[in-house]
């Protein structure tokens, strides 16, 4: 650490990093290339630069119509947004008070509760897929936004509880004590002091829940079998099945749906790592 290595070693490191970087970014470049290159085949050459340029895939994506003449992409984008927004609202609103209770109050079963929320978050939704499917089928909630929101909430709520609890732990308690001396009730303290102070954390948590719901594929494809009820991941996957694969359409859809979440990811990544490892260490 004291001395920098010799110049040729440094250059070698940079060259190595550039090659590795190219290898890592290659699949992404190929998709971007495919989105602007004519044809339905995925790639006929190893080059990541399109041989000719077209916007056909995007216009095809935006103008494709379903059986009832509705614009499919628009419909699926609305489905995705509605499901992700509702999941976020349900997740954050139901979990913020619990996160506060777990952070501030002492009560029997607190540790068990915390562990339960962590375990539920780690144990994947795929395990609950079948029972949820059987239940939603009985309740007639397959192919409905409400059903999918309920399913996504199973992971969103514990995630929100843990992230928000981590943030509440970091808030100083002096403010609350002062308010308590002035006669504020716990609910007043939570509503008038804690919530306004936690706006950034609430925003970050909400954005993460939104991203998770927006990116979810297997639940959506199992529970939403009616084409008008698809979300964007299901639409994108269905454009490249074994029987008919239109990779141009896939690439255009992939670029459009990934860009917003990738931007959000870059803005939020430092919170994500902190939250995940903090949760794991404490558990």
């Amino acid at each position: 650490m004291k001395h920098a290595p010799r110049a040729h070693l440094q250059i070698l490191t940079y060259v190595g990093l550039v090659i590795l970087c190219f290898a890592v970014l290659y699949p992404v470049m190929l998709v971007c290339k495919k989105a602007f290159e004519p044809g339905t085949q995925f790639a006929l050459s190893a080059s990541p630069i399109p041989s000719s340029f077209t916007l056909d895939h995007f216009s095809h994506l935006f103008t494709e119509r379903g059986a009832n003449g509705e614009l499919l992409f628009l419909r699926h984008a609305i489905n995705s947004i509605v499901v992700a927004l509702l999941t976020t609202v349900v997740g954050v609103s139901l979990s913020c008070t619990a996160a506060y209770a777990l952070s501030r109050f002492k009560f029997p079963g607190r540790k068990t509760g915390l562990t339960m929320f962590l375990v539920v978050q780690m144990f994947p939704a795929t395990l609950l897929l079948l029972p949820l499917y059987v239940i939603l089928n009985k309740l007639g909630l397959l192919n409905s936004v409400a059903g999918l929101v309920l399913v996504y909430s199973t992971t969103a709520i514990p995630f929100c509880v843990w992230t928000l609890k981590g943030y509440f732990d970091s808030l100083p308690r002096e403010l609350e004590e002062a308010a308590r001396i002035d006669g504020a009730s716990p609910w007043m303290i939570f509503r008038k002091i804690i919530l306004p102070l936690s706006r950034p954390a609430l925003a970050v948590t909400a954005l993460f829940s939104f991203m998770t719901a927006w990116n979810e594929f297997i639940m959506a494809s199992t529970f939403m079998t009616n084409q008008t009820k698809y979300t964007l991941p299901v639409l994108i996957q269905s454009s490249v099945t074994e029987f008919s694969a239109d990779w141009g359409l896939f690439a255009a859809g992939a670029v459009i749906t990934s860009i917003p979440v990738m931007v959000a990811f870059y803005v939020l990544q430092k919170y994500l790592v902190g939250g995940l490892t903090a949760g794991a260490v404490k558990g």
Partner: protein
Amino acid sequence: MTTVVRQLRDFAVGAALCVLIASAAFVGVRNRELADHQRALADRAASEIADGRTLPDVHAVIVGAATPSKKRSYLKTRQIKDAGVWRALTATAPGATADDKLFYDAATRFDRAPELDAAFTALLSDGSGRALAVRAAKDGLAMALTAPAHPAPYPFLVFIGVLGLGAAFAAAGALVGGRAVRVGTTAGIAALAIPCFLWNSWIAGSLIVLIGLGLALAQSTQLTDRFAAGMRSHKTALGFLAPAAISMLVLVLAPFVIGLVLGFYDHHHGTWSFVGLHNFGEILSGGGRALDDPLNFWFIFGVTVLWTLANVAFHVTIGVALALVLSRTWLRGKGVWRMLFIVPWAVPNYITALIWKGMFTGEYGAINSVLHVFGLDGVSWFSSWATAFSANVITNTWLGFPFMMVVALGALESIPKELYEAASVDGASGWQRFRHITLPHLRPALGPAITLGSIWTFNMFNVIFLVSGGQPGGSTNTLVVDAYRWAFERGERYGMAAAYGTIIFLILLLWTVFGSRIVRSKGSES
């Protein structure tokens, strides 16, 4: 007076639980009775129609054998004898009814399942309560479809009656005082068991009586009073906790318990039957399949373990190696490098999986083109186990290493520079510095990250499902993917899928309890 209030409080809590149990018992018994009745009726009607007689309110027909169509031999047509007249069994034929499709499908199913050659009877899965019976007759297949049946209404009056009776018992006991309090509680709760016994639901009835006895015991040790006091003193905390806790109970615990229970049932053509430990036996014994059969649980388990080990090993090695390079003090543009290397993490993983699927597919796919550039032969990636498995691992390594890299980078940043300086002064070599300073500081952060990463990888669904899709012949499926296939691709074997889910859960539980301990103890050794 307060004893009466306390008594009624305890009774109300116990009774709420018991009413739930009794309702479940009622619904279960009612559905089973209705199904049995409908099936028996369909059975009888089918044998009657085979002899040419009909029963009222049952749609009974004779369906002829499938004969190839004259114009197109691959199309099969059937004749149906409905109300004593033969006609074509097609949606457009005159006299066609809404039940025709059910009859046609049932005939096809009968032909396809020779092991059921004598007859079968099934409840339709559309929730209408209709049952369909099929049996062979001399001029074709005799079929009978019962009319829709509505289950008996929920017995509100019965429940209100027994609740009132029970509350009266409990209050009377409290008024008498002394030992009678507990007798009153038990009698009050036990009153709720009466309807269960009347419905022949012995398990639910005994459960309720046990709850009554348990409640009385809890009262005698003042457990209920202490519990109530605890609830009162932590009123605020519980109030804040309630929204998330209740929704987790409903959304996670209930499906989880239902999943555990479903593992003991078999689901076949829309009907559930209790099979005890049969599913677990079939899974754990490999179902009589050879050990290298892709459907044998132990084969899939082996693939899953290999999959998890390979991926975590690659994630950690690549992640830590990159983090070590990116944390060099002389390296410029650290932020930019970091940003570029975490791109794979930012891309939604179903898109990643599909991209790699596209790159591996085809003789002239992107990966094979790259191989050609280096003068290598193309590989048919999904036709052998080793290459298909490698394709999955490559994809998952690509999307998984950035997490480990970021965790390692964070840990490396927290190592005080003075340690390295002191080590160099003492003449430690580069390897010694890595072995005795870097590694011990990485462990506390990497330990939990590895536990978490191994669980994520074990449960990774999208990559396997979308990249290799289990090819060739299902041999690259892992446990979660195979559980999914039992439920949704192999004739709705929900019971098998649920049993798989339970086994996966137990494996994960063992791994989180013991695995994290192994990782942690290794960390504390050094």
